[in-house]
């Protein structure tokens, strides 16, 4: 094995482990929105490492173009998918964890609906 192949192997392993970390986050994090941040690790960071590792394993011009294209598409679409899912969850009232300190969006949505909103929904104290 050459040096680039070894580095490629290690990058693939690191990407797979990052994917595993994101999956554990899907179990462990408290609410939908923080879980989506865990999925960002799996959907953007893990694939980026694995695709670069793939390129180092089989270096050629055609592969570089295809891997670059896959990387750009994956980064762009995983972010859009995450945002769409967060929005859908918010609109259907997905519960928020206790750690959530304040929420500007509920104020905005209330004002759009023509309702008065009594200040921000945040715990009193140390902000």
């Amino acid at each position: 094995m050459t040096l680039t192949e070894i580095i490629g192997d290690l990058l693939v392993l690191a990407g797979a482990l990052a994917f595993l970390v994101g999956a554990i986050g899907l179990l462990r994090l408290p609410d939908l929105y923080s879980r989506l941040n865990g999925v960002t690790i799996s959907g953007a960071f893990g694939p980026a490492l694995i695709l670069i590792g793939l390129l180092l394993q089989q270096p050629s011009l055609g592969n570089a173009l295809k891997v670059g294209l896959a990387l750009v598409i994956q980064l762009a679409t995983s972010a859009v998918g995450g945002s769409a899912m967060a929005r859908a969850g918010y609109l259907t009232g997905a519960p928020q964890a206790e750690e959530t300190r304040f929420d500007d969006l509920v104020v905005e949505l209330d004002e759009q609906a023509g309702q008065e909103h009594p200040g921000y929904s945040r715990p009193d104290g140390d902000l």
Partner: protein
Amino acid sequence: MTVKSVLNWILGILWIPVYLAYDLLTGSLRVGWEILTPGSRISAAFVEVPLRCRTDFEVSTLANLVSLTPGSLTVAARQDPATVWVYSMYTHSHGSTVRYVHAMEDRLLRATRPAGKPPRAEDLERDEGGQRL
């Protein structure tokens, strides 16, 4: 448009992937550490951030960049006036999250405006706690 501003513009475009890789790495390490160690250090918030972006492309690219960084997520966006609502996992204060998104916006506008970026709005009509003034 001078030669200097065009050079600055090209440099801005070239810097975007570098900053993106850096943000992706540090954010992943931070959220990964949060996941793998016991206990919870999350102090989350939904923060409204007014923007200087004007076109659809700028607003959607900024929303994408924010979503791509683990630890922050765009929940909603509005075109006129340009605003994004950002879910941030680690919120020290309202102002710190706004400054974080604005730093990202600075780097984006450097790449999308050949004529140079407009000045940042100083008056965000919020105090540090996020209360509307």
